[in-house]
């Protein structure tokens, strides 16, 4: 569990957010994350995030499905129970295509969604700290992580100069935990000594 200190600035327009992210990165601040109500194309590259490999995972799950279906059906029809069905051949490859295709899609889709949930730590009852309640509504929330070298006041002033509307400092749990959104957690009431890097 990593309780950390953050400087949080919210923007009300993505047109202001883009240059702000660039300036903040140039100035050497560490961006913890930017929370937006909808996907903003290009923000990930601007923030310097690497592209996701989720597609590759999907491809691997897909070919797993293909091989599973083909080998299983072939094994059943030629080895385990070679039944004569209307005089059809024991290895009717064209007839295997529909199921092979369906399993390819099924494995790929289910595998990718599970991987997505795993990578993003998404599951029922997972709770995360919300830096701003309107980050899922109409605000673009940039969160800077404070290190031992960070001067909070300076960081706040810098965010204000880039166009942030609301700026504050929060001490919060950066990871996820199991909880309920209708119950307040006591996590951020931990004493200052436990705050990492501060």
């Amino acid at each position: 569990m990593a309780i950390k200190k953050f400087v949080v600035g919210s923007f009300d327009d993505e047109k202001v957010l883009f240059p702000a992210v660039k300036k903040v990165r140039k100035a050497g601040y560490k961006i913890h994350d930017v929370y937006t109500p909808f996907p903003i194309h290009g923000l990930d590259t601007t923030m310097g995030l690497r592209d996701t490999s989720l597609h590759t995972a999907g491809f691997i799950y897909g070919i797993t499905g293909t091989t599973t279906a083909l080998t299983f059906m072939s094994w059943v029809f030629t080895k385990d129970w070679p039944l004569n069905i209307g005089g059809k051949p024991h290895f009717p490859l064209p007839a295997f295509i529909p199921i092979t295709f369906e399993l390819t899609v099924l494995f790929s889709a289910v595998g990718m969604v599970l991987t997505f949930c795993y990578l993003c730590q998404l599951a029922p009852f997972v709770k995360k700290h919300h830096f701003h309640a309107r980050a899922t509504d109409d605000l673009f929330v940039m969160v800077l992580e404070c290190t031992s070298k960070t001067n909070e006041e300076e960081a706040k002033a810098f965010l204000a100069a880039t166009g942030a509307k609301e700026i504050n400092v929060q001490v919060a749990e950066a990871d996820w935990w199991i909880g309920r959104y209708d119950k307040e957690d006591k996590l951020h009431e931990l004493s200052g000594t436990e705050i990492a890097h501060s």
Partner: protein
Amino acid sequence: MASLRYESQVRSPLVVGEKTYHQVTEDIVRPIEAKPSKLWKIGFTISVLFLLFGVYSVYREVVYGIGAWNLNKTIGWGWDITNFVWWVGIGHAGTLISAILLLFRQGWRTGVNRAAEAMTIFAVMCAGQFPIFHMGRVWMAFFVLPYPNSRGPLWVNFSSPLLWDVFAISTYFTVSLLFWYCGLLPDLATVRDRAREKWRKHMYGVLAFGWTGSTKHWQRHEALSLVLAGLSTPLVLSVHTIVSFDFATSVIPGWHTTIFPPYFVAGAIFSGFAMVQTLLIITRKVLDLEDYITMEHIEVMNKVIVLTGSIVGIAYITELFISWYGQNPYEAAAFRNRWDLSTPYGWSYWLMMSCNVIAPQFFWFRKLRRNLLFTFFMSIIVNVGMWFERFVIIVTSIYRDYIPSSWSTYYAPTIWEVGFYLGTFGLFFTCFFLFAKYFPVIAIAEIKHILKKNGESFKENMDEEEKDTVEHFAHEHAHAH
């Protein structure tokens, strides 16, 4: 891919009115937070009553066997398989809107995709029940799954189209559900973060899986949506192709046709869009969402209807031509049993023809495409027509088989067979009412995403400087990638 790409002023806006991001949230979440309206309560009650009638009808069938449906030796597939194919077809528009139009970057899909995807899921739930109960001994339904068993090394027949159906429908349902729910996560988080009541915070907290809107999550979410769309696109085509294989791979005259797969897929999209129209015209009115589901949306869907309706029409005519050109007397007889008005089911063929081929041609006229009342009327007509298409294909091909002595007397469904059908309507609308009350009917995040490109106020109010900025960003991002 740049988010601020400037879009032509010539295109009509997809979001009408002075909208801010917050206003979008307000408009779409309002019906969820408000108390259910009287209209909703009445509709919901009626749906549940239909559902209960359906449950009782199914109970009759389980107790007495499929004889309760008036099926006999000659007509083994009656209303049940007709309804199955019809409901599966209904579902296809949802996947088409969410997947194929996403790949083709059609902005207008954002207004309607959520409701259409929900419709898909409920329609497939309805569809799946028909073949399952058609088995007669429904408690043995698990026999269709390939699993190690104590009956010897006995496996299901992987070369049977009926088994392909099992895989196709279950895969289709699973993938559609995942696609729909992944899209819902951000919007459920929006509802959660606005909630004041404890139960609402808790419920949507659980449903939203802890979504925060982190950039990295959005990046993965986008990648996931795109790949799921890429998977769903061939999937939706494969599902109805496989359903058509149930018929096309058999040797029954009237079924044994190579044109079936594309013709069924076109028909599925045709009927699916009609159902989307029926539902959305009501939904936008009742939930006051006319700014998001605009006449523009209705019109483009009508264009899809006239296109697919015409494809279906060509398929019908091709079938007739081939029955003559093929010189197969059995095939010719099967088709005579359709088009000849003096045969017992001739009326259903011509009803199908007028509803599916002639009626949609009115949509060539822009005035009619943009007429709500006419569109609503047509959407019902098309769905009736498409139901009769399946009925015609199934019943008129089998009620007179090779031996005249076994020709069926006029087949009419029993009340319990009709009841089962009405029951699936009950299930469908019960689910849809619950969805419309407790979930965002429109993809909030996606609307916000297209708002500055396609929103009315943004298009009009963009000054020269803003246009320059927007173009500058588009330029910069083109180089960033």
